[in-house]
Every structure is written in C-alpha cells, then in structure tokens.
C-alpha cells in the first residue's frame, strides 16, 4: 500500500526525522494559510499523487510570495499531471503539500528495502541525490552504497558509519545522519514497510540533514497490525475496478486488452493471460479467484469483468482440484444467468468430476464454448474477439 508524501512526512515527524515545515492543502486559501504559518519564503508547492517524476511534469513549483503560493496552488490543484509513472493518461491532482524551502548544500539518496535474496534489510545510499536511482545504478554503479542489516540483530552504529563514510559526509553532519538512519530503520521495521525512500535527503548550508522528499510503501500482508496506516489509503489513487474487486477479496488488475478472464490461482492466471497473448489477443485483466474458488467467487468475478466495457469475450479457466467441476459448472451457469452475460464465454475446466461439469455447461442453454485444453481455450477466445 502506498501513501502520499505528506502522509509519509507525518510519519517521519513522529520518528523525529527532520522534514521541512509544511502541511497539506486542498485549495488555494488553505495553501496561503499554510504559507503564512511557515512565515518565510521561498515556499514549495508540491502536487500529491502516488507517482514519481512530479517535478518534471510541472507538479512542483517554488513561490516567493503569498500571491505566488495562491497562483501555483490554483494551477496545480485540478491539473492532470502526467509523469513517467502515471502513464500517458495522467492523474488528476486533488491536494498539494505546501512547505518551507531549504538552502541546499548537497543532495543525497537514501532508501531501505527488504532484500529477497539475503532476507536482510538493505540500505541503499548514494551521493548522486535527486536523480533517478536506477539510472545512477546503471551508469555509475560505484556511486551506490549497499549495506545489509540482519533483521534479527537490527541496526548498529557500524552500519551507520559504513553508509556515512561511504557518502563522504562532512564530519559536522555524521552524527545527525547516523541518528536519522537509525530512526529510519526503526520506522521501517515497526511499520512493516516494503520501501522507504528519501530522494533527496539534503545537507543544508546550515549543516542540517533534512528529508526533502519522502516515499513509503507498506507490506499489504502486514496491514492487519497497522490499522493507523490503513487510514492513509487513498481510493482516488486506485483503479475503480481494482477497488471494487478488493471489496470481494478478489485479486484483480485491470489491463488494456479485450479478453476478460477468470482463473483460480495467481500463477495459472498469469499463464492464461500469456496464452491469450500467444493466441493473438490481449487480456483485459488479471483475475485470480483463489486456489479454492467457490461459486460465489465466480459470480463476483463475473460482475467485475462485465463492468469493464472493453471486454469482448470472456475466458474461464478453472483447475478443479479440491473443488469439484460439477459444483463449479453450476456456479458458472447461475452466475452467467444472474449477471445477464452478453459477451461470448469460453470455458475450460479440468479436474475432479469434469465430465458431469461439462454436461451441465452443455445443457445450460447459455451461449458458451467449451475448450478441451488451455491452448484450445486461448485460441477459441482470441478467434471470437478478433472476428
């Protein structure tokens, strides 16, 4: 789960990690009020959307007066911000962060992620702050510092030293930097983060260390123990169909193609999408109704797929293991009737009681094509959609 920069900075403050003074605003009056409270210029106005590259897209502006704050606030709120992460359709801005500008001496990069391979928390730091870190890693890998922290023993001063000396920090800021890194580590593990990124972390002309930006991502699986973080969820930032599907506990992702598909199991669902593509069509979604799909899940799956106008045909591929195919077939027939399905339906099922299941489908009177295997299913549904 992602949160906005202003929310991340709120969490940073509660861990005493320095961030610029500021607050979130929803209109220009709000914004000037906050700027007045800051009491000095320049002030920075930043669009709050869940995507990077906001500056390049025109979503971050510097203001030297209250009038300018008001102007920038009005122009940014409501704008359609397009960045390399929003896709070409962009994202509408509904709120901004208004905060104090700082005197930058040096920009650094600092992030923490869980490392899959070593099962350690990985600190990544670089002197090349303010740039795209993936580019830095590709072009000047020597500028990237990596320090691995074992989650059982936690962070120690030597980890901080390794990062601080690696960054060639001036002696005057090493202590403050180490304190920030230690707090950031605690923030990371205590909140089950999957990413904390500060880009840039700046050293000011006054020799202070401040997080100018803040990006946090959380482990969805751990949200049961972080009800406070869940309140930061912003449904405006998610695809409406994805949100609807999450209400039914379905694993759904809306995509660009025309073939709706419903599969039990995540790996098999991906493989079915690939099969559709290999047959010459494009999947309209990813939908995993769970390894032990029930008739009710199938019905909910239909509802979600059918509310997507792009869908020209639907492929259902269920591997009935524990769940018997006859029960499943009844579920499909019932769901298809209830949801008044109008697009052609290709069904491939396999597993326990498959013969009875196929019979139920054949006798249902539904406009329905059965496929003998996965490849056949992909080809049938692609043919229907293309013709």
């Amino acid at each position, binding site marked *: 789960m992602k949160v906005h920069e202003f929310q991340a900075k709120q969490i940073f403050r509660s861990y005493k990690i320095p961030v610029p003074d500021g607050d979130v605003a929803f209109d220009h009056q709000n914004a000037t009020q906050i700027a007045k409270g800051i009491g000095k210029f320049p002030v920075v106005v930043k669009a709050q959307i869940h995507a990077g590259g906001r500056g390049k897209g025109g979503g971050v502006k510097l203001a030297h007066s209250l009038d300018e704050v008001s102007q920038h606030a009005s122009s940014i709120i409501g704008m359609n911000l397009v960045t390399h992460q929003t896709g070409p359709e962009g994202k509408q801005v509904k709120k901004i962060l208004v905060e104090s500008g700082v005197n930058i001496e040096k920009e650094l990069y600092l992030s923490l992620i*869980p490392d*899959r*391979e070593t*099962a*350690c*928390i990985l600190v990544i730091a670089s002197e090349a702050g303010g740039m795209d870190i*993936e580019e830095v890693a590709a072009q000047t890998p020597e500028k990237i510092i990596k320090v691995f922290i*074992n*989650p*059982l023993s936690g962070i120690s001063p030597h980890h901080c030293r390794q990062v601080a000396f690696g960054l060639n920090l001036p002696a005057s800021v090493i202590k403050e930097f180490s304190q920030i890194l230690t707090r950031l580590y605690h923030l990371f*593990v205590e909140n*089950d983060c*999957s990413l904390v990124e500060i880009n840039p972390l700046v050293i000011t002309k006054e020799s202070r260390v401040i997080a100018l930006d803040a990006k946090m991502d959380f*482990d*969805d*699986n*751990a949200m*049961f*123990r972080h009800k406070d973080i869940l309140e930061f969820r912003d449904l405006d930032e998610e695809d409406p169909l994805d949100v609807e599907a999450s209400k039914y506990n379905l*694993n759904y*992702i809306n*995509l660009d193609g025309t073939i709706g598909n419903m*599969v*039990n*199991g*995540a*790996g*098999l*669902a*991906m*493989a079915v*999408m*690939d*099969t*559709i*593509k*290999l047959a010459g069509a*494009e*999947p309209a979604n*990813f939908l*995993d109704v769970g*390894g*032990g799909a029930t008739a009710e899940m199938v019905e909910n799956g239909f509802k979600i797929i059918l509310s997507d106008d792009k869908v020209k045909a639907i492929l259902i591929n269920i*591997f*009935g*293991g*524990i769940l018997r195919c006859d029960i499943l077939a009844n579920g499909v027939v019932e769901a298809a009737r209830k949801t008044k399905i109008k697009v052609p339906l290709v069904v491939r099922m*396999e*597993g*326990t009681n498959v013969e009875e299941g196929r019979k139920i489908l054949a006798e249902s009177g539904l406009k329905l094509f059965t496929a003998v*295997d*996965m*490849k*056949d*299913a*992909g080809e049938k549904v692609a043919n229907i959609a293309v013709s």
Partner: protein
Amino acid sequence: MSVFVNSDTRLLVQGITGKEGQFHTRQCVTYGTNVVAGVTPGKGNLNIDGIPVFNCVNDAVKKTQANCSMIFVPPPFAADAIMESIDAGIELIVAITEGIPVLDMMKIKQMLNHAGSRLIGPNCPGIITPGQAKIGIMPAQIHKPGGPIGVVSRSGTLTYEVVFQLTGQGIGQTTCIGIGGDPINGTNFIDCLDAFENDPETEGIVMVGEIGGNAEENAAEYIKSNVTKPVVGFIAGITAPPGRRMGHAGAIISGGSGTAQAKIEALKKAGVHICKNLGDIGRMCADVFVS
C-alpha cells in the same frame, strides 16, 4: 526414492482444528500420509478422527516422534507457529498459509540459516511424493506414482496444470514441490534442483517460475554447472504489467528487474528447454524426457 518426504514421514498438523486444517488433514490421511499428531493451543485434549491434538509442538514431538509439520495457522500467528516447529527440531516444515508479513519471513529465514529444519513455503500447495505421502492441499488424483520426473514450482494451480498434463502423457512424478509465491521462502529452486539431481529415481525435472525476484536467474546459474538431468522450464507473466503485484506477494516486476523475458533468457542459456505456451508442456515433456 523421492525427495524430502516419503512413507517414513510422520506428520504433525499445526492448526488441525480449523476448517481448512481439518479438511486437508483428512485428505492427507485418505491418501495414506502417516498423520501422527495435531497442534492447536488450548485444545490439547481433543482428537480429530483419532489423531491426538496437543497444545504445543514440543509435547507432540515428544509423544509421537513427528518429524514433519504442516501449517494451516492464519497469517498473524503463522510466523510464530513456524518458529515453534524450528525450535522443536522438526526436520521438515510445510507452511501452506498465505499472507505472512515479509518482515516475519525475513526473521524466519535468518533463523533457518542456523537451524536444522527445512521450510517449504509459505504460500504454497505443499509437497507430494505420489503413492507415498501427500503433505499439502494439492488434488491427489492428478498425480502418477513411480517417477521419473521431479516438479518444482512457485505456483499452486500452475503446478496442478503441469502435473495433470504430465500424467496425461503417461509420465509419472517422483516428487512435486510447491515452493510458494512469497518474496521470501524457505526452500528455493536450487535446493530442489540439487535434491532431484541427487535422487537416483528422478530422470528429469520440470521447473515452473514466474515474474519477480531473481530466483530463476540464480537457478539458471546453478543448472549450468550442477545439473546433468534434462530440465523443462516454464515462466508465467510475459504479459504482466510492471510495478503491479500479480496475486502472489512475490510476483512483481520492480525497477525493470524480475521480468519473464530475462528469466527465460537466463534459463535458455543454461540449456533448459523452455515451454512458451503452457498448453504444450505435457507434449513437450514427452519429447524431451521420453526420447
């Protein structure tokens, strides 16, 4: 022969009194798995179909000499359940539970580095040696005992599909292992490849991967210098969009790494026979393994 589990396996089920735990325990017993104990804290005097239930894994091990544990405990308590089994000296722990926080799994992985236990999963269908022992939730009837093929996969139903097609071609399996779809898991591809390479009855291996992480790339490196048996590989997620989690917590392309294409290239270079269309994998295995 087989890997990790066989007819000597003495199974304990953590979370045996829950709905899923109970249902799947019965399925395992029906298949012939030797289920010797169950554990549910606070229900230590019950028994399920004659299987004694204990409050703690330690007690269960002492009384029943269980050497393998299957875990159905819900995510908030699953990490603790795994640790309990590690501390009790269980040799093989199979965690079915989906949704364990990554940080919990990181700690467990670190513990496993210094313990004698092997963990399979979490977020997996389990492991089956057809005809001998089923420890997990896979549909038993699709398997064919006697080998000669070993199957290892990150995905549950995808494994069923592969096994179903193998059996359809008359090709049996030695052992099928679901290593799970989480970013951090206990047993990885390399552990299984190594076990299959050293199992005299296994003559070929099917390896099923998916997007996210670099377990497949590491496996490819390993295969190049250590595996002499033929390997057929399939990678799911050519059409998966970057930055989105495709159902499994570990199935995500991040920062341009973890793509299906990169994994396929790495495996091809290691001499793995890549199956492009999953619908063809049975026929392809027949070509590669039988000829």
